[in-house]
């Protein structure tokens, strides 16, 4: 069977130079996979290339979703095919309320979830529907960003560092949300992480990216036990 997401020899870069030198990774339906790597390894670049962002520019290779190439499709088209992307830094619309943020994505999805169904997953947000995103805490904004992505009812969700800069109890809350989305909503998830503990807590399988190449594909067990591997690529 074709994998849901098939990144095949992806090369990409910015005006300043090439960053990805042949990234290979596959995610099957229903999986929850992490993409690990240290700062500057190219994790965000990989995610943005998959999502169809204007930068980086793709220089070679292919990205296939359910067998069809995504290359050359603008970001809104990639979204329309069932991929929801939560980029680095949450990117909630600062001067829109919680509901308005979610509504932007509901309004433009093929078969979106209902507002209430989305907010059922986030009781914290349901309490602050009219609050502007700029007045929300980092954790609340991260939940809103995920809620907004969930609202499109995607087949694949891409999350770039969803736990970054959050207090431990919020990290656990978001871990639960991500697992819940994966299991209950049957959404395949690929997420970027630097923190091995968080990756181990949710994902079953992990790719390690280093200097623009996938250097390892490992199970949680191997990642937990192989200290040399962690030292070498993740510095922990």
């Amino acid at each position: 069977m074709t994998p849901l997401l098939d990144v095949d020899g992806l090369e990409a870069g910015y005006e300043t130079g090439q960053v990805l030198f042949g990234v290979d990774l596959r995610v099957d339906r229903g999986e929850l996979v992490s993409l690990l790597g240290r700062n500057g390894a190219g994790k965000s670049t990989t995610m943005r290339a998959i999502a169809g962002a204007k930068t980086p520019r793709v220089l070679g290779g292919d990205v296939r979703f359910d067998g069809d190439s995504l290359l050359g499709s603008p970001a809104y088209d990639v979204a329309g095919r069932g991929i929801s992307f939560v980029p680095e830094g949450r990117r909630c619309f600062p001067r829109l309320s919680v509901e308005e943020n979610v509504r932007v994505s509901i309004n433009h999805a093929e078969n979106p979830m209902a507002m209430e169904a989305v907010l059922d997953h986030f009781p914290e947000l349901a309490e602050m529907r009219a609050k502007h995103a700029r007045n929300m805490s980092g954790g609340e904004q991260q939940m809103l960003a995920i809620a907004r992505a969930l609202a499109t009812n995607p087949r694949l969700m891409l999350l770039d560092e969803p736990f970054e800069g959050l207090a431990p109890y919020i990290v656990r809350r978001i871990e639960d949300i991500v697992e819940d989305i994966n299991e209950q909503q049957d959404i395949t998830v690929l997420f970027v992480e630097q923190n091995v503990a968080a990756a181990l807590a949710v994902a079953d399988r992990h790719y390690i990216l280093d200097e623009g190449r996938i250097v390892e594909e490992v199970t949680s067990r191997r990642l937990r036990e192989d200290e040399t591997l962690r030292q070498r690529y993740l510095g922990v």
Partner: protein
Amino acid sequence: MNGNDPSFAREATDAVRGRLGSLTPAAWALLVISLAVLAFAFAVRPGLFVDNAIGGLVYGMILVMIALGLSLILGLMGVVNFAHGALFMLGAYFAYQVVGAMGLSFWAALVVAPVAVGAVGLAMEVTVLRRIYDQDPIIGLLATFGLTLMVQEAVRAVWGAAPLGFDVPRALQGGTDLGVTTVGTFRIFTVLVATVAVVAVYLLISRTDFGLTVRAGVQDDEMTEFLGVDLPLRFTAMFCLGAAIAGLGGVLRAAESGLGTGMGQTFVILAFVVVVVGGVGSLFGSVVSGILIGEATFMTPVVLTALSAATGVAAFDVSGIQGLVPYLVMITVLLVRPRGLFGEEGLME
């Protein structure tokens, strides 16, 4: 539709109260002195005062109609669209074509001209502007300046360079007696039409799903696309709308004051002043600032005449100061508030 959005009135009062609350004593003094001087000018020449107050409002509303589109295009696409003045001028010439040349009714021109200008705007956006959104702002300025020259020369080739004019229907001619003076009915009509256009744009942006998408696009265009929004399509629609409103402004202006090939340039520069004074990205700011600049332009000579009559100092009555007033207002506002009057909590920001 959106149940949580504060009403326009409340948003406006909040914004105004916020500004008043943050005024320095010096600014308060300035405000009080201005009001006193205006009251004095009214006492000296009530007829002239009311005449010019209405003239300023009409002029201000025309500026607002151009500034709205400029502000929307700047907020959404990051392009300083110099060609917006050319679109305003085209509205005037299309109306002339319908009424003056083809002899059809002014009411037809009121609909046809803005729609035609919208179509020209569409063509501009698709062929030129769309290619320059991601580029350096100077490229946008140069490209739209080029478009302006093209439109201007085309207008000159078709209609000639001589000033033109056309008549409005009898119902809009004549005036209404206000006691101290008579107001032209057409001026009232202009203010009404402009108000309807402004309110319609406001409702579109603040109350509809389309408007929500546009606001999201202004705040973070890339994220909006990640959520599945075909943003280029919205850009085209907003550009078209901005063009049509500028065209409508052109029709109204031409009906009252006639038309010439220079009108676009004059007005687009003033409309930029309006956008800057109101605060880039704030629609509400553009409206307030347009009216403020219109009134300041028309009231300054009245006040100066009154002062010179009362004091006997002829030097107060500076002739030709009108043209300077918008820039004086801009300098004053920018010195006090560099982001413009409402450039912080603006609707479009």
